[in-house]
């Protein structure tokens, strides 16, 4: 099973220690965007980067815990959306396994996948939580006009959510890949946790008992 190999990883100490760092990068990405007054969240750069570097588990767990921590501290409403962050990290990890971030068509595929995961996943949550809205004023304005012109609520809710996800996830994927390629080669190799059969060189073995 091809895709399942992406999940067969060696969770060595390095991978474990990488997860909190990815969580901190998620937070810092958002904090720096706020400092620069950029009109984007950019709060899942670490999740995507973690997925690309070290696979779906690192990315997924980083996304999940990022959301749990922000729900417990600054934004309780984020809690139900933890599942979406988990899915984004897993998506990035699968993309990373197949090396999508290394080619242009692959990068577009990665972006489309992450936008789809985020928007399709969030819509049912929005419908249950916010009566279909996304809570972002721009998207909600689109929502109101669509519902008013007779569109079904679920479709309006999806478009509402996607309005926000399309630019935010684009920049997130672009920044995460730029960071990925800004790393020294040695680090890219170091964090790779997959047991590859052939092709890529075997990553440094962790001390195992």
């Amino acid at each position, binding site marked *: 099973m091809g895709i399942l190999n992406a999940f067969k990883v060696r969770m060595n100490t390095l991978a474990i220690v990488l997860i*909190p760092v990815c969580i901190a990068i998620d937070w810092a990405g958002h904090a720096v965007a706020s400092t620069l007054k950029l009109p984007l969240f950019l709060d899942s750069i670490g999740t995507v980067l973690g997925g690309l570097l070290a696979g779906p588990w690192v990315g997924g767990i980083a996304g999940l815990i990022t959301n749990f921590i922000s729900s417990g501290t600054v934004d309780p409403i984020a809690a139900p959306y933890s599942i979406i962050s988990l899915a984004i990290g897993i998506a990035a990890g699968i993309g990373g396994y197949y090396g999508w971030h290394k080619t242009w068509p692959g990068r577009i595929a990665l972006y489309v996948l992450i936008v789809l995961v985020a928007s399709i996943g969030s819509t049912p949550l929005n419908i249950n939580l916010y009566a279909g809205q996304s809570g972002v004023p721009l998207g909600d304005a689109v929502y109101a006009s669509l519902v008013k012109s007779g569109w079904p609520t679920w479709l309006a809710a999806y478009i509402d959510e996607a309005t926000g996800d399309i630019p935010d996830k684009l920049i997130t994927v672009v920044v995460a890949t730029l960071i990925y390629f800004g790393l020294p080669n*040695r680090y890219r*190799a170091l964090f790779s946790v997959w047991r590859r059969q052939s092709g890529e*060189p*075997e*990553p*440094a*073995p*962790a*001390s*195992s*008992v």
Partner: protein
Amino acid sequence: MALSSTSLVFENVSYAYEEAAREAVSDISLSIAVGEWVGVTGPTNAGKSTLCLLAMGLAPHFFGGRLKGRVVVLEKDSRELSVIQRSAEVGLLFQNPFTQISGARERVDDEVGFGPECHGVSRLEVAARVEEAMALVGISQLAARHPMDLSGGQLQRLALAGLLAMRPKLLLLDEPTSQLDPAGTAAIFDVLAGLHASGITIVMVEHRLETLCELCPRVVAMVAGRIIADGPPDDVFNREAVQLRVGSPVFTRLAREAGLSPPWPVRLRDATAVFGRRLA
């Protein structure tokens, strides 16, 4: 030397990191007895850190790479035991104090207990070891503080306490004070002097040659992955090759420049005596 009294032995050891073109250390042979305090020095890329990583087993267990020869630590070949299995007996202190605290504890005393807990030591025993280790490095009064609130010097002492709570027999220190101010440095060296007196074997990488000569009865000078001198500091720094390629303590340089006859002094008190004799 009887085998039972050695703490660390390198037998014709060469090691290259994964994908590295050149060997980080080449054909190193070294034998360190139990209870010794050995200073390792040399310019950047001399292979000093690699020496520590090899002794700890992090190379090759963590880094991969190619290892030739034998590294025998506390009478066991480094290839046979993983780093975690080693951790009860051997401790390695890195230069950056911030990366060495676990980051998972909110109090200094809990942080010190992290290692013993990983080893499944009982709660009472952990508490006893924590108290002992904090007292040894002089941070008992900081027990309730948050680790991230400490200064660099305090943090480095905390990291050392975390290792001492494991009750190691061999301590490896990779430039433990290079990022610290004089007060922090002095505090660490005081602790090390006490540990040395209690019989722990210490291998310490250090750039500051004056400090090295003051503290270590034995010095190993490395250049480009090879050992070029090994012995008491007075011998090592009176060799021309060492003076040329590693440098020498300020006192040695002054005595040479002042036209005194060799052997030149390497420590302040010897220099005072030598220059003093000439003055008289």
